[in-house]
């Protein structure tokens, strides 16, 4: 059984068909890339997967469970975490707390424990803090744990967003342009980091990216989307040589 199974997914915004008949299956442990020109509907697919938009038609099945109709926080609790194209951290609170918020559904203590700071609260908080620091250490952010998130440089903010997503303990990680705005050296480091994180946390990854320097070395498979539909899918090398893909990216005249 695939970890994630998307069947003929589609959504309308007013009269606009933003995504149409989108199919995708992802096996546990895969890294799959979704590529395509701007406005092709990639982020819209992510928004449906994470529960922001309700699909107009089609189904999303995750670990054998139908996900349609779940709210984003419920999707997260089922084990799908994501990052955003335009970074969305909690800017005014510490790096550590940004990660600890990811533990919220599994904090292991209730509101009364919180208000009274009971022994259970104290024990669990210590554990959560430890786990958060571990995640931060993995992403090279432990020494920044006590500063505010908006004090981090851009690249570190991207990593913090991934750290926060890992705190959700996801099976599936959705990354929306993790290398946006990075130079080739930084992209290289992001490739290494993603590989490392994927192994360490036993993840399956679905990512959207424009930077071929990230997509090519890291993805097991690619799906190309244009005008809300899948126009090609296959191994990275196959996709690179596919004329339809070139056409979608460069426009019809360039190929003809």
């Amino acid at each position, binding site marked *: 059984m695939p970890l994630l199974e998307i069947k003929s997914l589609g959504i309308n*915004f007013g009269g606009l068909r933003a995504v149409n008949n989108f199919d995708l299956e992802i096996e546990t442990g895969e890294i799959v890339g979704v590529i395509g020109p701007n406005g092709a509907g990639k982020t819209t697919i992510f*928004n449906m997967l994470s529960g*922001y938009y309700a699909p107009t038609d089609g189904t999303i099945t995750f670990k054998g469970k139908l996900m349609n109709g779940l709210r984003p926080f419920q999707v997260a609790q089922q084990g799908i975490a994501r990052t*955003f194209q335009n970074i969305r951290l909690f800017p005014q609170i510490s790096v550590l707390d940004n990660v600890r918020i990811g533990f919220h559904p599994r904090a292991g203590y209730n509101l009364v424990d919180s208000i009274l700071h009971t022994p259970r609260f104290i024990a669990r908080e210590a554990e959560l803090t430890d786990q958060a620091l571990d995640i931060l250490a993995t992403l090279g952010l432990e020494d920044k744990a006590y500063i505010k998130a908006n004090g981090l440089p851009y690249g570190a903010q991207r990593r913090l967003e991934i750290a926060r997503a890992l705190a959700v303990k996801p099976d599936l990680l959705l990354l929306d342009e993790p290398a946006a705005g990075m130079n080739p050296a930084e992209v290289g480091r992001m490739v290494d980091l993603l590989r490392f994180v994927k192994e360490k946390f036993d993840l399956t990854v679905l990512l959207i990216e424009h930077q071929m320097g990230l997509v090519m070395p890291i993805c097991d498979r690619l799906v190309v989307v244009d005008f809300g539909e899948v126009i090609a899918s296959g191994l990275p090398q196959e996709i690179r040589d596919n004329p339809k893909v070139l056409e979608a990216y460069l426009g019809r005249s360039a190929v003809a």
Partner: protein
Amino acid sequence: MISFIQQIVNGLQLGLVYAVIALGYTMVYGIIKLINFAHGDVFMVGAFTGYFGYTLIKLPWPLALVMAMAVCAIVGVLNERIAYRPLRYAAPIAALISAIGASFFLEYFTSLKFVFGPDYIVIHPPVPDITWIIGGVRITIVQVIILGTVVVFLALLQLLIFKTKMGAAMRTVSFNHDAARLMGVDVDKTISFTFAVGSALAGMGGVLFGFAYPELWTFLGIMTGLKAFIAAVLGGIGIIPGAVLGALIMGQVEIMTAAYISSQARDAVAFAILIIVLLIRPSGILGRNELEKI
């Protein structure tokens, strides 16, 4: 039936006064996304200035009206300059608190003995006491004056916004400050102008209010201003026809509640309707609900 029509006429009178005040709230909200709490107090300043215009200075009332509008325009512009402009790019709540401060300032300052004074003033409207009875429904000259003045100024406002360069600038700035700047619009000037127009309208509302409900004191602007503001929200804040629509509804709701339910419940019913409308249409009757972009 006749009494019902009479209530509609009374509701229209109140609604039209609310409409001119609501316009100022909605224009300011449209352009700087601020709930201008001091706007109701500008309205109060208009009511007093008009009153002193046709009593102390003995101006004919149309001139007193113009004078009140001019004074309010100046008060509104100064208010923005001093209390809001320094906070334009701070968190919106800071400007809101400053607006509350400005509101207190206008109330307390005008209630000083050498300004308008702390007492109630009873007005004798400077218009002949004429009442027509049409099919049993009483229509007063004050109502005719209110209707005429408001309609004329609404038409002028419409012309200003859609047919002049300044109006185009206002629409651009309300869309996006940076884009407006790039297009060569003087954003500061446009905002000042918006305050001037909105405040002048409030001043007009104040003078007309004085004719219709002839009892003034310097804290008059709090409740009337709030009602007008609620009307703007009801119609869809930031949208000019929405302010007028909301105000007319608000006027009817209040008068009808007072007439047929209980005059004590008029505020509660008005606010209950507001909450229900917001729950069904979170951006007001004519407001657009936009999907948040992620």
